[in-house]
């Protein structure tokens, strides 16, 4: 299948190598509005999940 001149490293991009993927990308610089928006999203998800889970157990009891 593979030719004699096959060099595994040739066919991968630098950042595709496991060694490179282990290096973390830098943190994103978020504006205050974006940070607030993400917190609102987190609260939205937690509150709605709690509602779904409560309703699920309520349905079990009825």
């Amino acid at each position, binding site marked *: 299948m*593979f030719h004699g001149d*096959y060099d*595994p*490293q*040739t*066919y*991968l*991009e*630098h*950042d*595709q*190598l*496991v*060694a*490179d*993927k*282990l*290096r*973390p*990308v*830098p*943190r*994103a610089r*978020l504006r205050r509005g974006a940070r607030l928006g*993400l917190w609102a*999203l*987190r609260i*939205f*998800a937690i509150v*709605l*999940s709690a*509602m*779904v*889970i*409560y*309703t*699920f157990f*309520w*349905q*079990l009891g009825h």
Partner: protein
Amino acid sequence: MSPSRVPVATPALEAAGESAGVLRQPALTPEDAARSRDRFRVHNARTDGRRWYLLWLLVGPGILVMLGENDGPSMISYAASGATYGLGFFLPFILITFVMAVVCQEMCMRVGAVTHRGYGQLVLERFGRLWGWFAAGDLVLTNLVTLIAEFVAIRIGLSYFHVGARVAAPLGVLLVVFTLSGGRYWRWERVVLGMAVFNGLFLLAAILSGPRWGTVGHAVISFSPFPGGSFNTLLLLIASTIGATVTPWMIFFQQSASADKGLTPSDLRHGRYDTVAGGVLAALFGCGALIAGAALFGHGGANIQGLAGAGFPGALAHVSGDTVATLFALGLIEAGAVAVLTISASTGYAVGECIGAPHSLNNSARNAVLFYGANVGAALIAAAIVLIPGVPLLSIALNANVLATVLLPVALVFLIMLARDRELMGQWVNSAATDRIAIAIVAFISLCGAAYAIDSFLGAVHLI
């Protein structure tokens, strides 16, 4: 054309390498070597101009994620919509949800191909550990619930052939272990793709159930008749239909699988073909389940309640005949089995990425214990729960898609932020049009999920 080895593509990825003083010729791991072999084939196919072979090599994650999401609970949800409301509203609504899914999944594929990193890893590194673990926690919770529903679907399908839960659950776990045993992404992908082909049984069942095609065409064009009945039930079906088409695990899976497969920016066009093909096939097969279920409309279909009793295969046998019922039952087994494999894999990817442990199907189990452990462990836990007598499987299955819908906006918002991050994506960043469409999708899904959750909750606490 020269081989695909090129300098680091985008500022963020470049910074990741330079900040740590990365050696430009690091030693190759077995995972690199396996991925390189796949890239070698891609390079040769591209160089030799073998278009169809190139397409064959590059398709996979898109078709798998879409057909994986045509899972047991989804197909039952589609069939329940057809049995309860007929062909009206939900047939075109399914098509719309798959268009939404294609938009979201294209972003996953693109981010994975450009950054070569999975969704969990990028969220964790780019937005901090708290968000990364929040996203992974979301995923593990919804995945466990969904996996339980998948085993229920396998059980229902097998029960039509008089095979019990004690066989269905171990069979599912054995399948996970078998597919993982090769230590190669390529092998895993091809085995699961081969199984996913049988999702087409739902379309065959629909054709053999003898629908009036004029009525089908009218429903697609007109969205009518609009379903009546209780507002809450309608919201449940809308939320679960969305949850049956776009889910958190799909986001984790396709981005991680695209990176694991070794896709690069030069493969983006084929990645889009893969995703669109998956979306079209899944929409066709999903509509097939709805059309097959619609045969029960007016025959007490609304009272089947999804997973209760003999369920759909048994009911279909009376109305549409044994062949349609057998195809539907076999389809449920396939849908559950493929979803167990893909959802378990997404769990493994998420856990490995967030903990920072090796997380690739190109790695051996010995080198990636946590990845393989999470993969098999998730399936094992779900299978064990299914075997517990008296567990409310029906409620779990029906609420799985709704919970996924409620938690989906968080995953989608981070996906959009990643895909429009110029520092990370460089020239492959979202276009303005993609941004607008994606934001509209998140708003729509959030609204539907919130409406159902709030309406049900207020009903439960007797406020409405």
